[in-house]
């Protein structure tokens, strides 16, 4: 059965975040959190999930190498795709989780319940130019192909793609298919897509049928999305979502809370279900 491989230091897995940095990301995010622009909301959510993964691997003074992490941004310049980590990790397509933990870009102070905490920041908000989604998926495919050659027995890589617009370099479906056709001994690569919205239309969360999606662009993203694994379905249910065995890892017209849940279900549930 697929998606059963335990994640440990001998068999880490890869989380690859694919982030839309197009110009429209400066628009305000929809829903009740409508005071934050999409770029900022996305950066906060990704920093939050990276912190979560680092903390999960933190073992006192060390960080156990359970995961590799890649963060790619696309569209900050016309047609550009580049690694989105900066500082000491600038230019790295993939970094082991210990390096992520060791080299945040900066820290910001937050006060919670009267106590001061220092939170790391890895990803800054970016809203640049166009939406070269095909190029981004192609770059991601190359990275994952190389990673799988070195990790044949691993839990398959999970690609988390967050975007707010249509691809400007063609239909991404074919490229997405190439990506999710890659596999390890434990199953195919998982690609989950989240569409950020500026409107207040209700989100469509983890749909199971393409007819549930109102427009062609959304249907395209639905077709690019993998079915949620059983433990992800369980995690989605625990967050109050109605899901079935056919539900895809896709949210259309997501607000900020959807994005955070999307990241949780795509990554944290994997951590909880498979980490030994």
């Amino acid at each position, binding site marked *: 059965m697929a998606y059963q491989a*335990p994640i*440990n*230091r*001998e068999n880490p897995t890869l989380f690859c975040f694919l982030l839309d940095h197009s110009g429209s990301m400066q628009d305000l995010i929809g829903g009740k959190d409508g005071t934050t622009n999409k770029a900022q909301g996305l950066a906060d959510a990704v920093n939050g999930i990276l912190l979560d993964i*680092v*903390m*999960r691997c*933190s*073992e*006192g*003074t060390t*960080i156990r190498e359970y995961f590799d992490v890649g963060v790619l941004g696309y569209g900050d310049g016309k047609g550009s795709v580049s690694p989105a980590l900066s500082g000491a990790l600038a230019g790295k397509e993939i970094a082991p989780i210990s390096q992520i*933990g*060791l080299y*945040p870009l900066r*820290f910001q102070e937050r006060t919670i319940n009267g*106590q001061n*905490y*220092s*939170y*790391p920041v890895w990803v800054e908000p970016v809203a640049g130019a166009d939406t070269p989604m095909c190029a981004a998926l192609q770059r991601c495919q190359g990275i994952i192909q190389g990673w799988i050659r070195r990790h044949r027995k691993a839990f398959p890589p999970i690609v988390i793609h967050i975007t707010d617009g249509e691809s400007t370099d063609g239909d991404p479906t074919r490229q997405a298919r190439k990506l999710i056709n890659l596999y390890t001994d434990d199953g195919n690569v998982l690609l989950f897509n989240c569409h950020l919205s500026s409107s207040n239309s209700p989100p469509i969360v983890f749909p199971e049928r393409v007819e549930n999606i109102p427009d062609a662009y959304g249907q395209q993203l639905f077709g690019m999305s993998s079915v949620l694994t059983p433990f992800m379905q369980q995690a989605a249910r625990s967050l109050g979502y109605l899901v079935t065995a056919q539900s895809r890892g896709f949210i259309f017209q997501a607000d900020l809370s959807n994005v955070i849940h999307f990241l949780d279900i795509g990554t944290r549930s994997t951590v*909880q*279900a498979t*980490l*030994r």
Partner: protein
Amino acid sequence: MTIRLQGFQTPKNGSTSQECQDAVAWDPQKTTFAVADGVSDSAFQTLWANILVNSFVAETQTLQSFSRVWLANWLRAQQRVWNSRVNWQTIPWHGRLKAQQTGAQATFLGIHLLPEKHAWVGIVIGDCNLFRFSKDGILMESVPNHRSADFSNATQAFSSTIQNQDQMLSQVKLIQGTFESGDSLVLATDAMARWMLERLEAKKDPLQEIPTSDEPGVFDHWVSAQRQSGALKDDDTSLLLIQLDAVPVDVKVPGPRPVVTPHVAQRTSQAWGYVYAIGLLLSLLAGVVLGASLHNWLSNKQIEQNVQKPLLILQQQLESNQSSREDIGEGLLKIVVTAQPRTESGGTAQAIVCNRNPKDPGCNPSPTPTPKGGSRSK
């Protein structure tokens, strides 16, 4: 009263014994025993698990029962100890943040035997489990979990932080029970406990299947095979086997051990009863012959010579007043305590055998005559 004690521990695959997050401790003089399982997704959990078990076995020998007041005070004291032993100034940001926000968590089970009452009292939180088997191998008690389905990924645990202290304390179960001469008590962390219940549900005898050889590596190899077959979860695995009024090791004769689970004990068919009775008689006969042979062979030998390379051999009586200690080879320690017996009926020499991984610093013999195993800290 005679106690024969064996302890086993194997870390999860890919981890070294130093990284094992289970902790086990015992003090046969005080008749206190404890196991704990540090929760992976918490901070400095191995330190926390060891603080809990070591404190429990050292401090509870005067208690005839546990109270909520004692529990609250004891836990608060251990939280202070954990806080003082975490080196806050030198740990990196992620370790500090995790320690501040989640603290350490550990499931825990500790018991104090009351030999004069033939009873035990204890506390448990989470999914460490206690089993009591009769001398015939019948499961008499399984606490707190009764079925393998009771185990899940989510479990309650002692936390090193004082947030939600009252709620945490309310989750602790004060447990107690009795025992009879010849009974065996087993304290196990969750992976082993779940496996044992699954074997019982399959009408197998887990105590017969678990290798209790003192040969280093035997238990590890068995655990590895069980994990490979999928029968045992790949998790830190710890087991304390306490045999009460056990036949001394130099004259021990293996006997038959019928398998009866609590759910099926009354339903055992008459036909199986006959089969069992015949098997029992044959086994007893074989045992007597074997025992006589063994007795002759062993009569001129010391007890420790009959135990194959244990890491730690103790012979002692309860309430000791004299002791001697000597190193007897690589990783071996023999402690002989001559003492007045505690039990009314009078006691004989106690054979307590610890078999743990020699590479594990938690297995290193304690400098005192009453070692507490698993004293591993980070």
